[in-house]
């Protein structure tokens, strides 16, 4: 190496180290930022992990038993012993049950009309009524499904008993034996937590980067730095690197908390996950940088960050399934790094997917990351050059 280029690289190293060190110092000294970077992701993962629960169970159900027979008591006990419905008290009549639904004390009411036992015994059609609170359609469907499944089985058993009593063979049964792969208990948390990691990293990296650079511009420190012989590229790398490190730290934290609190498995290769995280952070940091080049001050950067974040999270498939979106909106989600990252994380953590399964998502992340970062760096350099 010539003396000239040796001097260049040693100066570059000093400048890069100085920016990195300064950025870390500022971050550590700012308690609010530290909370945003470390504590908030932790708290949000825990809250989301517990709160975002698509599993419907323990639907509060009131019982109106006007039959008052051994039969009706038996059916009520069996039906409510299932985890899907939860006994929320017994009332005398339908108006009281409706009142409980109105008050939100119950989401379903199970009504046995008089004559249920005798109808069943005398082979007349028997009727069981269910009142449902339809304001949460998903829950109403699950509750009604549980009731009809139960009475379906009851009916089937009655047929079998009668056929056997008449000395005729019972018909062959079709038994469904589901075997669920990857998330055998169909819990929401293992599905949700990897997605949450993606949305939290947007907050931590995009927002903090955009605001950090906008603050330098607002305070005039950017100008003071640009008067030194520091190169814009070193400045940029030195400023982004600490947030890359914090982003990686946050991912590790979330995966640890996820597996400890929510039994999120870790089936895949950490290498695939790490590649995914790095490519993803490349695009979120790039978006942050791009927003900062479009902002004059911190307020604008904050707003810009939100304008990006809201649709990015909503169109990521983390909160709502992408398949439920109209076609044109589904097409847009291909441009959303959060979507690809959530798929990579779920693939690696839940399915043990490798490069061969996830190459497409990783390629999308790489293309988006390089594209956004190149655009942002170009804008940043022309602004300062």
């Amino acid at each position, binding site marked *: 190496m010539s003396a000239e280029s040796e001097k260049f690289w040693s*100066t570059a190293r*000093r*400048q890069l*180290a*100085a*920016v990195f*060190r*300064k950025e870390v*110092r*500022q971050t550590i*000294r*700012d308690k609010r930022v530290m909370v945003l970077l470390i504590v908030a992701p932790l708290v949000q993962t825990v809250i989301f992990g517990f709160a975002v629960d698509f599993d419907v169970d323990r639907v509060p159900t009131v019982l109106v038993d006007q039959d008052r027979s051994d039969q009706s008591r038996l059916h009520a006990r069996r039906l409510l012993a299932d985890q899907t419905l939860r006994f929320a008290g017994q009332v005398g009549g339908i108006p009281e049950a409706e009142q409980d639904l109105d008050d939100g004390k119950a989401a379903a009411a199970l009504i046995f009309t008089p004559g249920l036992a005798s109808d069943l015994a005398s082979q007349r059609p028997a009727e069981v009524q269910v009142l449902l609170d339809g304001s949460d359609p998903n829950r109403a469907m699950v509750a009604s499904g549980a009731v009809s499944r139960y009475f379906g089985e009851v009916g089937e058993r009655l047929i079998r008993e009668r056929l056997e009593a008449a000395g005729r063979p019972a018909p062959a049964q079709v038994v469904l034996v589901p075997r669920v792969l990857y998330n055998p208990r169909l819990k929401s948390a293992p599905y949700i937590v990897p997605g949450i990691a993606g949305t939290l990293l947007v907050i931590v990296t995009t927002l903090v980067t955009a605001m950090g650079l906008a603050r330098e511009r607002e*305070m*005039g*420190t950017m*100008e*003071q*730095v*640009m*008067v*030194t*012989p*520091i190169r814009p590229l070193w400045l940029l790398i030195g400023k982004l690197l600490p947030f890359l490190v914090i982003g990686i730290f946050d991912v590790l934290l979330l995966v640890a908390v996820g597996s400890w609190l929510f039994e999120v498995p870790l089936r895949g290769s950490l290498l695939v996950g790490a590649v995914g995280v790095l490519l993803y952070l490349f695009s979120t940091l790039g978006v942050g940088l791009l927003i900062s080049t479009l902002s004059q001050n911190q307020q604008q950067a904050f707003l810009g960050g939100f304008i990006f974040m809201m649709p990015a999270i909503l169109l990521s498939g983390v909160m709502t399934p992408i398949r439920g979106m109209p076609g044109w909106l589904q097409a847009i989600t291909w441009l959303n790094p959060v979507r690809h990252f959530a798929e990579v994380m779920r693939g690696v953590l839940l399915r043990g997917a490798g490069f061969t399964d996830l190459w497409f998502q990783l390629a999308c992340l790489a293309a988006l990351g390089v594209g956004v970062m190149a655009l942002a760096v170009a804008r940043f350099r022309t602004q300062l050059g």
Partner: protein
Amino acid sequence: MTARVGPAIVVRDLTRRFGTFVAVDRVSFEVEQGEIFGYLGANGAGKSTTIRMLIGLLAPTSGQATVAGHDVATAPGRVKESIGYMSQKFSLYLDLPVEENLLFFGAAYGLEGTALRARAAELLERVGLDAQHEATTGDLPGGQRQRLALACALLHRPGLVFLDEPTAGVDPVARRAFWDLIRELARGGTTVFVTTHYLDEAEYCRRIGLMVDGKLVALDTPAGLKRTWVPDRVLVARGRGLAEAGPRLGGAPGVRAVAPFGAGLHLRVDPERFDAARVAAALREAGAEAVEVEEAAPTLEDVFLAVVDRDAGGAP
């Protein structure tokens, strides 16, 4: 290497346009090694735009500028290595301790290790902040901040420093202390290019350039500017009834300007026609009482007003 021969700054027809607005209009001047060069003008006259071009932050629209031997258009990197700059707005990291700011900017200039620490300590002592080196920068009062900013601009021992309104918003005692530092710097051989709109400060400069609406309209030593621009005799009158008597005198032949000055009057008169005694007599005649008139030395403020007057349409 930094060229130490020849002028520190050479500017030829330097021009900067923003759209149709001409912020700096064909400005030419030279700054010699080791001098304190003052750059004066009203807000918006083009002072900061000129500085931003000279330090490589803003490309000139046309014209040429050589700073510390390097062309600002072709070698802005070399220019940045050779100069120190203190901006108009305080722009160090307020959330970092004093010493961290010095260490960061020192490293930005390529200093490192014990050499950097020693240089930072030396400068802190020189600007009188050695006791505050651990204080958070944002907690310092204005005057101390300015001294810290100066220290940051001097870390790499530049031969030339640009100070853009370094004392704006600072109290008079702190301003005086700051100017002591600037003069000490110049005595050590550093060239200082300073903008200000405190005209009393401009007296410290060896030479002064005056900007009006983007044009450099005057350039000379303070004494030279006064001779050229204020050839009149400047008199200060005190007494009773001057507020009424003054304007009556205003139209008389040989009286060039009459302006209230505190409780008294500030007059500029033709030295051929008037002296202190004759002005006193004229004021008494116009109705004033207990009149005392003294000759005053013209100030840069008189120069500034004369220049702006001329530019507004009057003759010098």
